[in-house]
């Protein structure tokens, strides 16, 4: 009994219980993703990792691999859908890369590069979101939040602190801080928390170290995001 499925025509081995994403990563094949992180239970919300399994759309981070599956990922059709999702993320927030400390190390930006996103295409929302600078060591810039929930999962499942949560529904969904004041400075959050390490964009930033790495030497200056199947390294 062969434990393989095909991904874009290539056989990919898997072990029982592995998702398509896990098996692809282990085989060194990159599937674009933002809310998936190998150390956390999949959330399946960003839909960037959508693939076609036997002709049907599904999130590869939540779909268990099965023998004989025919999976398509790097097709013009699927990448066009991924690009549109990414463009929507850009216009819903305030993503001004030239003034963002995370630029060059940002998974949203690197994913947009990978997908060949030349412009955000849609009309911008230009939302008004205040930053939270109340914490002595960490700045929160909600303008860049893509609601991946990685900080929520890290704080709840690893740190055991429940510092973050997603509040509201639909287009009104937003990241909140669990404190009576709503301020990060009034929580027991620290830089050593796992939640401080997992933000794929520039929301959770260590203070007083912005732009420490020069342009040309940042993570995604050196290699495109597709060169690292498992994007575990965070800054």
């Amino acid at each position, binding site marked *: 009994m062969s434990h393989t499925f095909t991904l874009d025509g290539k056989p990919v081995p898997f072990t029982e219980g592995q998702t398509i994403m896990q098996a692809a990563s282990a085989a060194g094949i990159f599937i674009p993703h933002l809310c998936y992180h190998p150390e956390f239970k999949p959330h399946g919300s960003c839909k960037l990792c959508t693939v076609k399994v036997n002709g049907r759309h599904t999130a590869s981070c939540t779909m268990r691999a099965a023998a004989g599956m025919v999976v398509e990922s790097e097709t013009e059709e699927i990448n066009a859908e991924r690009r549109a999702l990414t463009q929507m993320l*850009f216009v819903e927030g305030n993503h*001004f*890369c030239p003034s963002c400390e995370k*630029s060059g190390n940002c998974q949203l930006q690197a994913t947009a590069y990978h997908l*060949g996103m*030349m*412009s955000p295409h849609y009309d*911008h929302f*230009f939302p008004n979101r205040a930053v939270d600078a109340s914490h002595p060591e960490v700045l929160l810039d909600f303008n860049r939040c893509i609601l991946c929930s990685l900080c929520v999962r890290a704080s709840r499942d690893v740190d055991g602190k429940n510092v973050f949560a997603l509040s509201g529904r639909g287009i009104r969904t937003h990241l909140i801080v669990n404190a009576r004041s709503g301020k990060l400075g009034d929580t027991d959050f620290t830089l050593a928390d796992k939640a401080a390490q997992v933000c794929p964009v520039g929301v959770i930033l260590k203070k007083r170290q912005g732009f420490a790495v020069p342009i040309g030497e940042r993570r995604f200056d050196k290699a495109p995001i597709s060169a690292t199947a498992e994007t575990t390294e965070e800054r």
Partner: protein
Amino acid sequence: MSTDKKKLKVATTSLAGCFGCHMSFLDIDERLFTLLEHIEFDRSPLTDIKTVSPGTDIGIIEGGLCNAENVHVLREFRQNCRILIGMGACAVNGGLPAQRNHLPLTTILEEVYHTSPGLSNGMIPNDPELPLPLNKVHPIHEVVKIDYFIPGCPPSGDAIWKVLTDLLAGKEPELGHGLMHYD
């Protein structure tokens, strides 16, 4: 290359931009001479021609839209150019000028001309020659159709060169890793 081939007419402008993208355009350095074998400049800060000729082949727009004149110029470009290229972060998403978008315009004008320390008898400029500011700064694709974008703040000379030479060769412009930058 044939010299008798008709040169493509190229127009450029900077709207709500800082001319940094135009400086980057000049960073193609001696390749400008190669480019001039294939194109001639129409309206551009490089020629000081003030209007876009009908039948212009390529229009290159730096900057977003922060006032009524920007919108007027952009529409003139769209009307007269076969292909419009948005050059740089401000054209793509409003860029730095769009950082004012979460503030009401009146608050900004009040602060800049009335309440900032050191201003005496400050008045908000109202000469009829001055174009009226827009409530928000907008990227150019929100007003007219833009055919291609070159992202970057500014895009490198190499990125601008790649897009222009791809277009001259009749190819879909493509920026790979290293040339594609939003910052």
